Each structure stands twice: as C-alpha cells, then as structure tokens.
C-alpha cells in the first residue's frame, strides 16, 4: 500500500463544480503541462481527421443533423409522457424503473439495489452520468468496490486520474504512461508499451472480473419510449460483457435520453459514431428490453435521473442543451479545449458542451466562469450532430451571470464590470465617446514607446500585454479625419465657386 501512496498524483484535478477553481485559474497548470498538451493535440488530430473523412462521405449529413435535432426537440417537448410510456413498457417487460430527483437520490437507490443483491463489488460500463453523481467514491465509502471495465476508465481508475473527455476519457494519457500504470497496478514486471501487450494485460485483468462479479452498472445512450428498450453503444465489447454476464444490471440514465420511436435510432446511430469516434458504425450496439428469462441479467433496474435537467428544460434558449447525445465532437473541434484539455472545466463534462451543461445542471450556483471560457468561434456549433447552438447558449448564460452580478456588491470591485458600464455610457452619446477617445490617447500616450507600440500596461491591460504588444492610439481617429476631409471639400467647393 505504501507504494501506492507514493505514486499518488499530485495536483489531482477537481471535477466537482462546487469545489473547482474558476476556469482561467484551473487552466494555468494545464497550459504549462507540455506533455499533456502534446498527448491531447495528437489524439484530437487523429479523431478529427477520421471524423472529417466520414462526414464528408455522407451527402445527407446536414439533413441528418436537422432530423436529429427535430427528433430530440420532439422528445423534449413531450418528455413527461414519453418517460411514462418508457416506464410502462419497460416494467411490462420485467424491468424495474426508479425515478431520482437528484444525485443523492440516485446514489441511494443504487446502493440499496446492490445491498439487496448482497454484493461487495460491481463492474461498470463507462457512464458519464455515474461520474456526474460521483457514484464511485460513494460506493467505495459504503463498502462496495466499483470496478471500471472500459479500457480508458481502467487506466484512470488504476492511475488515480480523472477523465478529460467524455468519449475518450484518458485522451490526455499516452502509451508510455499507460504502460507504467498497468505494470505498477497489475504487478506485471516486464510490460512493453506495445498496444497489443497493453490490451492483453487489460484483458487478463478484466476477464477475472467479468467471470466473478455478479452485478453491473451501465449508463444509456438512448431509451426508446415506444418499446421500453435501452441502447448502449461502445467500441470494446467490455460493455457487452457487463450487460450480459452478471445477474443484476443497473442502468443510470438522464431523463433527456429518451427517444420517441425505435426508428429514430436510424438517424441517431449514423450521427453518433461518425461524430464521436470517426467510425461509420460503432463496433458494439447493445439493445435490450427489460428481462429475458434465462438469458442475461435476471434483475434489471433503471434509474431515470433528473439532477437539474428539468430546470434546463424550462429555459427557452438553454433547453437545446438537452439535445446532446454526448458524442464529444464539440470538444475535439474546440480551440480552447485543444489548449487546456478537459480538466480545466472542473466538471466531468468538459469542452463547449460542458461549458453550457455544467452551469445549468448546477442551476448557475457554480461554474459561472465556464460560459466565458470560449472565444465564441462557433466551431462547436458547426460540428454538433444535433445542432446545439452552443455560442447562443453561452451568451445567454453570460447574461445570467452578469444579471446576477448587477445585484451584488462585488460589481464595484470588478474592473471588467466597471469598464463595460463606462463603455456603455460612452457609446450612448457620440460626443462622450469622442471625448473618451481623446482621453484614452493621452492616457495611453504615457505607455507608448518611441516605436509607437505599447509593451506593457497596468491592471487589466496587463492581461493583454502578457503576450501581445498593442499599437499606440493613432493621432487622428477616423471620424476626425472624415470631419477634416469634408470641411476641406466644402471649402474647396466654396473656393471654386
């Protein structure tokens, strides 16, 4: 055990929105971590190139996107009825449906089921929703060991790491690091970093779990209201093992996962694999409805989790956030995510979707720096398979943060707030704006060097001059030039006359 403690990762990222530092602060150590940024850029480039190729070959890509966003909007419009329909169909097929209003409620239900099954270990399929409710540490503290079976999740669990991406959670870890973690935690003396050897090590580790642990926890990619079925897509087949071998299966699903009809999968599955991993079809698509006698898990529980989702549903602009099918394409396309990776977002949902989802799930109590963690370049919206206008939602959330700030005293100490209010006063009257330009020219004159450039500024300005110079203000604004010019022409006209 002492060896483990020795290797514990320092500066473990905090993925709890209530405790995480603001984005700009959390980003700093990551920006300095050249190894992590190298791993990240390489992995993203690979996925991006694959995605681009496969999207290009789909001539009806835009029509698919439109269809998918319509299907999701329809589902959200009728969410209550569809969930009840799902409950009825699933129950009829032998499943047990539970409703959880929040994370604590969901954790409690899961623990009770596991206690009833009398297990002290449970195997898990990669599920973001279980990370959202911080299930693993809770189970651990309650005496149940949750064992991840997704390769990337194993790497993180054994290496004491945190996910940095929703589809490829160990995106930031390279092969050498995986070798080190496996050798240390699986007690393998001579392990090469050949992918085949690493997979073999994971397979041996997993096989023993699959054959002995009698309960599993999964997430869900889709729920089908029409049939009461659950859909899980994955790449490795480890999920399929979890879904078929144990006697007890617990599925945790956000309420927004429901689709009206079985046929809707036709659209969704075409978009999901291409957007997520750059594949035409994901290798394993598991579909089941309740319990089948004598085949697969004989006890099936599904927990429908709200945890802030219905408050998002009530928002006019924010509602589209719930269309998300967790493909991760937005993070792969995002130039901000590319620089920092996922850990800066202080949540299990990183990247552009995290920047809008997390603060809304937290009902704006936490993660208020996230809506500002974007240059609004729009790359996320361009790639989103369900056409979530992420920049639009970011702007709406920024307005909510600002409106909150208007009520508090902190605004009097925020140079940004003061500056923007002052700028507003200026922009409301051209004469004031012009006076401010003249004043600015004098003030910035003190910082302008002989070459006409400003190399360093105090206060907020220092955040600009940290990496960029600023050209000094020109002697004449455009409107001053224009005034002089028209005066000139009028005089010339008079002269000619």
């Amino acid at each position, binding site marked *: 055990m002492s060896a483990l403690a020795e290797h514990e990762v320092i500066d473990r990222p905090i993925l709890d929105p209530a405790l995480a530092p603001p984005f700009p602060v959390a980003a700093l150590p990551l920006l300095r971590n050249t190894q992590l940024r190298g791993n990240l850029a390489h992995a993203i480039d690979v996925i991006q190139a694959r995605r681009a190729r496969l999207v290009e070959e789909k001539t009806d890509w835009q029509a698919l996107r439109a269809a998918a966003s319509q299907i999701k909007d329809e589902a959200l419009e009728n969410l209550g009825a569809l969930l009840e329909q799902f409950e009825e169909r699933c129950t009829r097929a032998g499943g047990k449906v539970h409703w959880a209003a929040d994370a604590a409620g969901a954790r409690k239900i899961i623990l009770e089921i596991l206690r009833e099954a009398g297990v002290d270990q449970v195997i898990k399929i990669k599920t973001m929703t279980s990370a959202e409710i911080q299930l693993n540490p809770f189970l651990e503290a309650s005496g149940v060991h949750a064992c991840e079976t997704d390769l990337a999740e194993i790497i993180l669990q054994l290496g004491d790491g945190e996910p940095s991406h929703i589809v490829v959670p160990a995106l930031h870890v390279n092969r050498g690091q995986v070798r080190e973690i496996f050798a240390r935690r699986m007690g393998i003396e001579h392990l090469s970093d050949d992918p085949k050897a690493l997979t073999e090590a994971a397979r041996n580790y997993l096989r023993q779990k699959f054959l002995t642990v009698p309960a599993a926890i999964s997430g869900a990619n889709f729920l089908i209201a029409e049939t009461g079925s659950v859909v899980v897509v994955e790449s490795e087949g480890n999920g399929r093992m979890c879904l078929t071998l144990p006697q007890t299966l617990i599925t945790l699903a956000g309420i927004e996962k429901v689709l009206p009809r079985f046929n809707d999968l036709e659209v969704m599955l075409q978009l999901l694999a291409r957007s997520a991993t750059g594949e035409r079809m994901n290798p394993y698509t598991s579909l089941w409805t309740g319990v089948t006698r004598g085949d697969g898990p004989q006890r099936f529980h599904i927990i429908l989790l709200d945890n802030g989702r219905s408050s998002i549903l009530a928002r006019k602009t924010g509602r589209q956030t719930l269309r998300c099918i967790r493909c991760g394409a937005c993070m792969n396309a995002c130039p901000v995510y590319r620089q920092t990776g996922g850990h800066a977002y202080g949540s299990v949902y990183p990247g552009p979707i995290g920047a809008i989802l997390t603060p809304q799930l937290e009902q704006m109590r936490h993660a208020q720096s996230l809506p500002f963690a974007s240059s609004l370049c729009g790359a996320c919206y361009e790639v989103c398979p369900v056409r979530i206008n992420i920049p639009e939602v970011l702007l709406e959330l920024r307005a909510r943060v600002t409106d909150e700030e208007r009520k508090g005293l902190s605004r009097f100490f925020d140079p940004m707030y003061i500056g923007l209010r002052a700028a507003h006063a*200026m922009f409301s009257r051209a004469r004031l704006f012009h006076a401010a330009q003249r004043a600015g020219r004098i003030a910035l004159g003190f910082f302008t060097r002989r070459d006409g450039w400003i190399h360093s500024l105090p206060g907020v300005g220092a955040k600009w001059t940290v990496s960029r110079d600023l050209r000094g203000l020109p002697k004449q604004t455009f409107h001053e030039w224009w005034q002089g010019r028209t005066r000139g022409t009028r005089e010339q006209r008079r002269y000619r006359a």
Partner: protein
Amino acid sequence: MRASLFITCYNDTLFPETGRAVVRLLERLGVEVEFRAGQTCCGQMHANSGFRREAFCQARRLVRMYADAEAVVIPSSSCVAMIRDQYSGLFEDLGDEPLRREFAALAPRVYELSEFLIDKLGVEDVGAAFPHRVTYHASCHGLRALELGERPFRLLGKVRGLELVRLENPDRCCGFGGTFSVKNGGVSSAMLAAKLDDVLRTKAEFCTALDNSCLMHLGGAMHRQSQGMKTIHMAQILASTEDQPAESMQ
C-alpha cells in the same frame, strides 16, 4: 449607389487607416460614401460579455441611425455577425416588436465589405495592386457566421502582383474573442501561439483579414516577437494601387 459607412468603434479609435482605405476604395468604384457622425458601437462587446440591456440600447441606436440608409457597409465581419445573429433576439427578448420590424427592414441592406463588393456591386477586380506575398486569415465570424466562403479569395485573386499563400488550419480561431483575450488571457495566448505558428509558416510579408480584431491580436504577437511579418486589413490591400500604395502598414 450611396453607401453609409459604419466604421465600428475600434476601427474608429485604433485603425483609422482601414476606414480611409474603405472610403478610397468605394469612391474609386463610383460609390458615394457618407459617414454619420453620431455612430459609436454595434453592441457586440456588451452582448458577448453578458450585458444584454446595454447591447440592446446600442443596437437600437444603430438601427434608428441607419433606418433610411441605402446600404450600410461595415469593414468588420464580427460586427456584421453581431447585427445579423443577435439583434433580432435582443429586440424580441427585451420586448420591442416595432424595433424588431424596423430592424428586419434594415438587415438586408447591411453588408460586410467583401459582401458589398461582390454581392452588391458585382465586382471582383477592384483595380488594386499590391505586389507582396500575402496570407489570408478567415476570422471565425467571417467564416462561420457570415459564410464569406471564397469571396475574400476572389477579391485577392484579382489584385495585381499579389501572391497568395494559403494558411494551414484556416478554420482555427486566433484566440482573440473580445474580452476573452483578457478574461482568459492564458488560454487566449496559447491559442494565439498556435495560430501564429501556422501564419508564420507561410513566410508571407503580410497577414490580412476582414476583421481588425484578429489582426490586432496577431499583429500584437508579431510585434512582441519582432517577427518581420505585418498585418493589414484587406480594405487597405484593395484600396492600394500602383500609383497610390497602401498607407500605414503596421
């Protein structure tokens, strides 16, 4: 044809040479240019920082100021994107239906510079000469919000003596993002460094764009690193002729 120039607040203050170039270019093409003295800002900075009420006031100011304009020309793609993408929503949300209708009438007459040249005037060859090696940075708003597409390349392609070098990763943001560049200075600088690598690799003499905000960002880093490359707004390239080369190349 009479065009009303909305210069934008930061071009007025920081890049008057861009405005002068637009005037010179349009007048050379036979367009009568007018400039309304009361103009200030389109509201983008406030809207993008969460100050929607303030942005609303500026948007209202702009719509009323140009209600009777034949065409409004704006040499800044992000400001045009602000007007096109955000004004309707602001007027709708902050409850001013008559204003929303007034805006709907104005909107089709608001042009980004390259749109005005190609779509409205129908010219690609503006008679410019600029004998330099140039690379073009597609600003995110020009690329995705306005979908300018090949317009800038068609214009640059007709400039005499200009050698165009295409940029790698042309759809990647330079990291400016308005107040983002200050609020998230560290990340913004990292994005800038990545972009600058691509830009410098072109070995061009000039990096041009249809948005001075990106150019201020890239140019600021070029100057900090004492790089030989300079930035120049495309209006200045298009205004430049054999007799009268572009003024004030920063």
